């Protein structure tokens, strides 16, 4: 499937910000696999959450083409 992804913080620095990604599969797990292949530096982060429609999403969550998908590297507010 094909989705549009936005990234913040160091994930934005690595990916360049907004990107369109085409990958095999339908879930967050598939998305991650494709992302790590394309941007190996992402796997060097202490953590990387994926938010789908403004909710943290586990690997099993199914994606849809018009979902709001955002890469969230380690948070450090406060």
């Amino acid at each position, binding site marked *: 499937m094909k989705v549009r992804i936005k990234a*913040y913080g*160091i994930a934005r620095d690595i990916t360049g910000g907004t990107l369109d990604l085409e990958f095999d599969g339908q879930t967050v797990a598939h998305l991650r696999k494709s992302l790590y292949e394309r941007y190996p530096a992402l796997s060097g982060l*202490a953590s990387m959450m994926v*938010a789908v429609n403004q909710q943290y999403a586990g690997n099993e969550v199914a994606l849809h083409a018009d979902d709001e998908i*955002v890469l969230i*590297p380690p*948070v*450090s*507010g*406060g």
Partner: protein
Amino acid sequence: MIKITEKTIDVQKVIETASSLGAGAVNVFIGTVRNHAHNKNVVWLEYEAYEAMAVAETRKIIDDAAGRWPLLGWAVSHRIGTLKPGEVAVAVAVSTKHRKESFEACQFIIDRLKEHVPIFKKEVFEDGEEWVGARPEAQPTAQLN
């Protein structure tokens, strides 16, 4: 009030928003930019937020806190953009009837905020910059002895 703002945080406003006539206690936490980190001088910090989700996640934390302690008022304001040492990055205030619960609820909110809310901080030093917490903790080999 949950606010993500590029403007200087008005701490007095945060306190007033959280206050309540029925409350006997207000606890306020203010996170400020330190002038050094990792033994290096911090020139400035840059904060960015995934704003819509940051507000939604903060709201969840407040709801969770309100279920644990009888909050009479609360307010959270987080700064984004470029901050110099001494500036306020975040202010959290809660009011409750009694003081113990005001401390507990305020600490709960700031602890959770730091763990869950999608806000990102970059420290800019004289000789480089670093996204805080982004990399797994490196063992500083120079200090292993």
